[in-house]
């Protein structure tokens, strides 16, 4: 059946509205990218901090010399330059210093913890202290 109505097309407002919606979609994609990157970054930071503590605590359990070397390096809050002499694997500790902003070590008789500035505030990971 023939349609005798005149085709009116879109008005300018309708077109601008559709462009506005497209703009919202682009902003949505950008937001997704930002949130996804932030979550992935936070998870990587947490994994690195936990692995660093685990590695240092296991190595400290082998010998008293190793334990004192680790305590000295943690107190200096720096990546040691004489890695070969110390015999301890500080790979993760040096990575943590590089990748965890404002990294601080807190140690007492009960626990050893790492605190750093994550994208959404301060984060802390705590493990039982050296025996």
């Amino acid at each position, binding site marked *: 059946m023939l349609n005798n109505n*005149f*085709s*009116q*097309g879109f008005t*300018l407002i309708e*077109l*601008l509205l559709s*462009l506005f919606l*497209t*703009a919202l*979609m*682009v902003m949505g*994609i*950008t937001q*997704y*990218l930002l949130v*996804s*990157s932030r979550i*992935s970054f936070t998870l990587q930071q947490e994994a690195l901090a936990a*692995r660093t503590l685990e*590695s240092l605590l*296991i*190595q400290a*359990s*082998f*010998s008293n*010399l190793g334990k004192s070397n680790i305590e000295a390096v943690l107190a200096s809050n720096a990546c040691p330059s*004489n*890695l*070969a*002499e110390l*015999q*301890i*694997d500080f*790979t*993760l500790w*040096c*990575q943590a210093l590089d990748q965890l902003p404002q990294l601080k070590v807190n140690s007492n008789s009960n626990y050893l913890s790492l605190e750093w500035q994550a994208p959404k505030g301060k984060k802390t990971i705590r493990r039982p202290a050296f025996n």
Partner: protein
Amino acid sequence: MQKGFSLVELLIVSLLGSLLLLAASQGLATLAKHQKDQSELLRLTERSNLAEVALKKAIYEAQNIFIAGEATQQYPSFSQQNILLGYPKTSEDSFNQFTSSDWMLLSQGKSVKKRYLFHLDKKTYGYGLAFKDFGKNKPRSDTLVNQVELVRFKFFCEEAQAWIRGNQVSSCKKVTGASFALLLASSQALEKKQLAQVILWGEKLTLPTDGIYRQLVSATVHLMDKPL
């Protein structure tokens, strides 16, 4: 009657439309690149976790490290050499090994048959961390994790109370722990910042500048404290 747009309206809509299309296509292209990089990083992390867990489990369950060998060339060198295992001394077993990597042979029991070898070599379908179980009827080396470019081991010798390297293991009566480090490469180039050089246990490793992202993993494990 169809009214249509005036020229000014058409120009405004075209301009805004093309700007938005450009932004949308840029956004989608970035999203696609981001997703590709994320999935490649995820695959790399999965492979490094697999290699780490396999080595941790094998070392933890081991009762002894029989023998180990050190790299003879600097990383990156992917040339291979055939190494005679040398344990037991009469053994004629040999295996291929990257000259820039370490290897180790560990035991999970009294029998010489219960030997496991971890080494790095290149096979038909690529290179990686390989595992050989001598307890099987026809022992053969299988690649456990692909694209592992480097393996380093060091061992804690109880009587010396010190960490020793692979060539000193046979002169140590009891090894009570082991540390390992692995360098894994992504299978595609990634837009992720990579250091030109990493220092592993005092050794400088210069990473190739080929766009491939490399991940360094290290861990320390106690051997099972159970008498043979």
